[in-house]
């Protein structure tokens, strides 16, 4: 009995650990998408942030410096995305993909040049990492709590504040926002910057909290899973949070299942288990969503003169 309870608690803790970067990323992406800027580049921002967090923490010995560098790195990419999509009305998906490719390449190149470990940063320990606060076994570092708080925060900002009202409006009918005397560009830039902040935190979590250093391509598609969570959550913070937890749980179960022999089947191949979250994404995206409720102007550059 006690063993079962321990197993459940351990699985839940693992769920939360795995879900934290997804939640942070999803809340950030939510702000961007609500404003009408699709952010396929979450993955790249998170990866870049993870690299700079680990690199900075390793060089300075301070985890907090690492967090700061992560946010800065993600914001630079966010501004790049904003510059391409808002100022120059470029294609948002193309810009996002470009950011992903840039991050994938740049982290490896810089990592190899600076540390010479095949793209990895030196292992981090002690104050170079964000360590658990209350339960050392559960891995409840500060960013886990930040992620949990980010959900009600996002809900409150979007539903209860002036900024949120304008954000929702600009993602639906930007022309109406313009006609109401509000700058469409400035609103969208702010949304993109908030997104960068959260993606930065998510990246820092990966390399200096959950893991002890950066390894190449360590985001492994989590930015895209966060994007999927936004869609399952129908662009609302609480359901998106639920979707992140579901992915986290699936991942946690997958880790538990590795090496376990199932009756009649035998050992389940690791690759199949690891593919589960992605398969779920595919199935949910294909069938479960039904009618879309995406912000109407998502992906459409705002052009005043026609």
């Amino acid at each position, binding site marked *: 009995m006690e063993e079962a309870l321990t197993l459940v608690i351990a699985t839940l803790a693992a769920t939360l650990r795995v879900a934290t970067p997804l939640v942070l990323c999803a809340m950030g992406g939510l702000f961007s998408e609500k404003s009408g800027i699709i952010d396929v580049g979450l993955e790249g921002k998170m990866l870049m942030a993870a690299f700079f967090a680990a690199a900075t923490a390793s060089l300075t010995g301070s985890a907090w410096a690492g967090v700061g560098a992560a946010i800065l790195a993600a914001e630079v990419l966010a501004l790049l995305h904003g510059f391409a999509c808002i100022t120059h009305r470029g294609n948002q998906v193309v810009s996002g993909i470009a950011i992903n490719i840039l991050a994938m390449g740049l982290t490896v190149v810089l990592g190899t040049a600076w540390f010479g470990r095949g793209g990895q940063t030196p292992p981090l320990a002690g104050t170079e990492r964000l360590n658990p606060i209350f339960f050392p076994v559960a891995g409840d570092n500060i960013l886990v709590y930040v992620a949990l708080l980010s959900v009600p925060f996002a809900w409150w900002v979007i539903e*209860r*504040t*002036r*900024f*949120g*009202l*304008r954000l*929702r*409006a600009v993602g*639906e*009918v930007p*022309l*109406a*926002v*313009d*006609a*109401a*005397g*509000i*700058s469409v560009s400035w609103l969208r830039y702010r949304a993109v910057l908030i997104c960068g902040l959260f993606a930065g935190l998510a990246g820092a979590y990966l390399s200096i909290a959950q893991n002890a250093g950066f390894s190449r391509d360590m985001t492994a598609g989590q930015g895209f899973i966060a994007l999927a969570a936004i869609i399952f959550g129908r662009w609302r913070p609480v359901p998106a949070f639920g979707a992140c937890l579901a992915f986290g749980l699936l991942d946690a179960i997958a880790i538990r299942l590795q090496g376990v022999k199932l009756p009649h089947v035998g050992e389940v191949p690791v690759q199949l288990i690891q593919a589960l979250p992605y398969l779920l994404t595919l199935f949910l995206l294909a069938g479960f969503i039904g009618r879309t409720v995406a912000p*109407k102007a998502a992906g459409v550059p705002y052009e*005043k*003169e*026609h």
Partner: protein
Amino acid sequence: MQELTADAAIELRRIDKSFGSVHAVRGASLRVERGSITGIVGENGAGKSTLMSILYGLHRADAGEILIDGRPVEMASPRDAIDHGIGMVHQHFMLIDSFTVLENLILGAEGGALLAGGLAAARAELARLAGEYGLAVDPDARVADLSVGEQQRVEILKVLLRGARILVLDEPSAVLTPQETDRLMQILRLLRDRGVTVVLITHKLREILAVTDKVIVMRRGEVVAERRTTETGAEELAELMVGRKVRFDLDKAPARKGETMLAARHLSLVDGRGVRLLDDISLEVRAGEIVGIAGVSGNGQTELLQVLSGIRPPTGGEMEVCRRKVDAAHPVDPAEMRDLGVAHVPEDRLRQGLVPAFLASETSILGYQDREPFCHNYLMDGPAVGKYCSDLMERFDVRPRTPGLRSANFSGGNQQKLILAREMARNPRVLLVGQPTRGVDIGAIEFIRRELVKSRDAGCAVLVVSVELEEILSLADRILVMFGGRIVGEVAAGEADERALGLMMAGARAA
């Protein structure tokens, strides 16, 4: 200008604006007196909307001056216009469908970083305005669930809530029933009496004559005339707008009806979500008559045309097209319809009538591209197509007469003429026309209507769907009124009166 400048709420001086190679406004100057209703009339593309967008800060003028209450001002963005007390009700509403009325009202004037206070204040203010002007709207309703008339009311309330002293309305009645339009006119008079300056942009002369104090006429980007409303009339204004005499009455001989070419019996259409778009539609169109379908936009007319033209199969009932039976089990596609002799001029010109990026010559054969002489053995015959297009352009007065020009580069009226030419050139037995003159200027309207009557006289069965009641009244031999996906009334053209039709269009009365 003998009056004092200080009496003018708005004064525009020599405003000039070009979009690329299009010179939209050419040195336009005008004055709007405080506390008056001023109409600005002109054909589509005359520059009236552009001029007002400049006043509202949505576009920047290339040259010229704007004076509000006699003081020169800079209108860099709508913010400036709002700060100077200008409010605008746009032709396409600037509302967020998924928001409540209240949320829409406070957007841009939230009264603080948190919403709660602003929402409460707006709710109180709304109740006051509702009492004062009779502008009642449910503050908690979602805008998507409101009728078009109510949405417009929200737009006007939005402007009043910001304390605007100058109200600009761009084609406000384009989407309203006659009754809703009358109600709007009452509200505008009430606003004027309370000291609000109203500018009304429209191409409907009836409204101008009914409600304005002064009329400004624009043509090709210029202000060409200014009249006291009491000292002018529809004929003079129309002439000023077009630059030549215009005949309003379409003299046509009585219809000589032949056999039934198109019949629908108990047609219904239910969409994937179970919404009943068409409900028990029965109608027939005979050779040699024009049947007009009147109704406020969005009451099933679009779907009816889709079903009749074979784009969507009906889910119930049947129809007979040139003796071919069509029902849910025996659907028909638009190509077969075309072979049967049915031609269709769709409502949505740019999405269904043509491909904007295609050349005019390609547009002129769209749907007929696999026939001789345009195509032999899978290869297109460019010169033949070009020649054919030139002939059509000549016959239907499409300008410019350039088959090699992209379709998108023609004006709305000329695009429409090209599509009509394409569909009518084959002497169809049934002609379905949706919104024949939407976005078309007065000169072309006259031409298009005459062509439709000519086609009728040649023995074609013509079905015209239009949201312009005046158009239905002038064209149709028989009028059917649609409301909520049903046909709610039928009137012979001679006995039609606008008021009764308006009530039917609003679903208030069945004939």
